[in-house]
């Protein structure tokens, strides 16, 4: 008899007598060639080493005791997300996103999750940055996704309340109120470069969904630009996005399937995917 009941006290490792002869099954259920000591997996899984991704973005920090190669943050999030040790890396990554005007929802959600698991390690400053970045990702619902992970208590904080109000205005297309409120809270928003442009892009997106021809004043209100700057803005979009300046102070927006219903691709229901047709290939002989 090679196996026996092992009563497992809570905190110890599990050990089993190894089968010295190396034979395989004894009674069929367990094929125990060798049974190594196992640690409770509540220790964070050790990061596996691998080649550096030369095209990827490196964090550059070496974790103590790990091998020389460090993983890019994206890989960390994909491979070993439930690991309290990567929290500082993720925080640095947020700051990197802010300074280099990039964005990664998955990494930020991972960080918010870790904050949820260990609330005492949460940094409101980082969370604020994540939220601002999420606002800039509109029309994607990233802002709500982040809010789902932030405890109510924390959301009562002044700056978060402001951000929630700003999000509300954007979600309900109340651009004038948004820009007013944003102006009052410049100190919160200016930490993240590119904020204004991102919101203007969102505004243009909503306009393109809605209008074939839109009055200049509406555009002005939406993107918070007036006078000469407005002219420049429109000129830029005429050059690259197909806007056309009509008379009577109107702008024609490029045609897409949302403001020109006739452009709607005959809905995919009409076209039959190839794999369905393959069902009758044998019958067609």
């Amino acid at each position, binding site marked *: 008899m090679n*196996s026996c*009941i092992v*009563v497992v006290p809570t905190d110890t490792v599990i050990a089993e007598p190894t089968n010295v002869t190396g034979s395989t099954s004894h009674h069929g259920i367990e094929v125990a060639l060798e049974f190594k000591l196992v640690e409770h997996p*509540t220790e964070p899984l050790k990061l596996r080493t691998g080649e550096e991704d030369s095209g990827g973005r490196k964090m550059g920090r070496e974790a103590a005791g790990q091998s020389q190669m460090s993983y890019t943050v994206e890989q960390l999030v994909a491979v070993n997300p439930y690991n309290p040790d990567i929290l500082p890396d993720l925080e640095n990554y947020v700051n990197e996103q802010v300074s280099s005007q990039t964005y990664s929802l998955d990494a930020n959600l991972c960080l918010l999750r870790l904050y949820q698991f260990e609330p005492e390690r949460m940094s409101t400053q980082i969370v604020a940055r994540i939220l601002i970045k999420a606002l800039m990702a509109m029309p994607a619902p990233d802002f*709500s996704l982040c809010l789902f992970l932030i405890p*109510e208590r924390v959301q009562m904080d002044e700056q978060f309340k402001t951000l929630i109000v700003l999000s509300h205005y954007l979600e*309900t297309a109340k651009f004038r109120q948004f820009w007013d409120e944003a102006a009052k809270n410049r100190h919160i928003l200016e930490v993240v470069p590119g904020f204004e442009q991102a919101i203007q892009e969102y505004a243009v997106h909503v306009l393109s969904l809605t209008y074939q021809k839109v009055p200049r004043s509406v555009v002005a209100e939406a993107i918070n630009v007036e006078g000469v700057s407005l002219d420049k803005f429109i000129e830029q979009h005429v050059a690259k996005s197909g806007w056309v300046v009509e008379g009577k102070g109107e702008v024609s927006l490029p045609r897409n399937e*949302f403001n020109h219903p006739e452009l709607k691709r005959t809905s995919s229901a009409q076209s039959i995917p190839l794999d*369905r047709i393959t069902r009758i290939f044998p019958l067609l002989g």
Partner: protein
Amino acid sequence: MAEVERPPSAQVTNYPLKGQLTHTNTLHAIKIVALGTGSLSSSAVGTLICVKQAAMLAGGHDYEDGLQSSIDGGISYDPSFVPDPVKSFVVHLYRHIREKNVYEIHQMYETSFHTLSDRMFKDTPWPSVEAVAQYVDNDHVFCLLYREMWYRHLYARLSPTLKQRIDSWDNYCSLFQVVLHGVVNMQLPNQWLWDMVDEFVYQFQSFCQYRAKMKSKTEQDIVLLRQHDQAWNVYGVLNFLQALMEKSSIIQILEQEKEGLEQFTATDGYDYNGGSNVLKVLGYFSMVGLLRIHCLLGDYQTGLKCLLPIDISQQGVYTSVIGSHIATVYHYGFANLMLRRYVEAIREFNKILVYIYKTKQYHQKSPQYEQILKKNEQMYALLTICLSLCPQVNLVDEIVNSQLREKYGEKMLRMQRSDDESFALYDELFSYACPKFITPSAPSYDEPLVNYNQDAYRLQLKLFLYEVKQQQQLSVVRTFLKVYSTLSLEKLASYMEVDESTLRTILMAYKHKTHSVGADGKTISNADIDFYIDDDVVHVVEAKTPKLYGDYFLRQIVKLEAVIGDMDRVKLE
């Protein structure tokens, strides 16, 4: 083994089921059953049974406590007593597992276990694993499996103590570690493997809820909690599921299957080459487990990502077990609802509700029947919510539609208005149908004892209602769009009693809310009624669903060929 007093006379006394259960009370005096069926050994007949603290049964190191408790209350269940049916159950199950008779294992697991539970262990746990071990050669793995079933039974019928919860966690650790080491050489039915993952997640959820109810905790409890802070730790739980997924390489297997290099779905996950299906299938179901946990945490995006390798537009191993099928679609639909992808949610809910409608009669005898019905009702509620926010009734089958009208027809009408009453209805349906959200972090045991188990749920509800509020104006716009084909902004503004600039805002909001961002980042229209503005005129566009001739013809062609084939095979004498 402990010596247990066995009062000789046969008495049947009722004790309140949960009345005497407290965390420190080591004695659970539950209903006393006189075993009087013929198949039991004579010593069992007329014996009073009672329950000892489970630490005795499972751990063995709180032996003294257990002994103490038996002196306390008088009548305790003898965990070392193994009635004959149980003996034969474990012997047969052990043999079948050794011989890999999956069908037999499934029968015993699904049917015999529950029959025995109903008959003999309605309110008491099964005999302890130490007692049955002798009948199964003290096989280590079988004992882990038995213990897993033991705890599952405990959770289902009784109320586990803190110690029992912790011991169950230890058992899962041992069991999963054995599997992860790849040393198990058995084939288990998918039902069992799904139940393991499902129960694991359920016990985690239950523990978080339990831990958050600080008010009723005693000093002893808190000491125990502090001591065993690794038990049901969120990192541990998530990492186990992740490890199962990775070790089994299930993602690669599924990819390779698409190219025809692997057989997995085709064999329902079973291994016909003499190997074991346990690790692979556990890895597969872990993906659903991860989806579920992420939904409980409020992280819907990541949850959906975890499920990505499984193509839910197709059949798969996840459909081989009804529990897993329903759990997958329920959480998938819920996550999409919270991500505002209403069309996707409606589609999937519709499919599963049709499926349940057609197949639920076959599950009437199954122990999961109640759970199936409950989830069915919850999904109808979620579907109602989706359809109220995104009225695309054409996506819904006639069967489902009629059920929907029956259950929620009136409520749906009220929900489409934008007043306080509709709010209350959204609240009601959401609260009924949502998962039991959890707070994953341990409380600070020094702070005043407060119950905070509802915090997570309250947050999700609040954010959901916030979204509903933002969308309330839209239904007003819709009613006007339905009636006109073109309408000047001025007129519409006056009908809606707002000024033109506010109207433009509302119309833009309508556009934004009805055009969600899909998983690939592209904009998708959810709207059944759409419009565009040209100059100062609103042009209404009604989305027409084209008749799906293509699909219909394909189906009929295949059917006809099948009929011809059948006819060809008929030999005329």
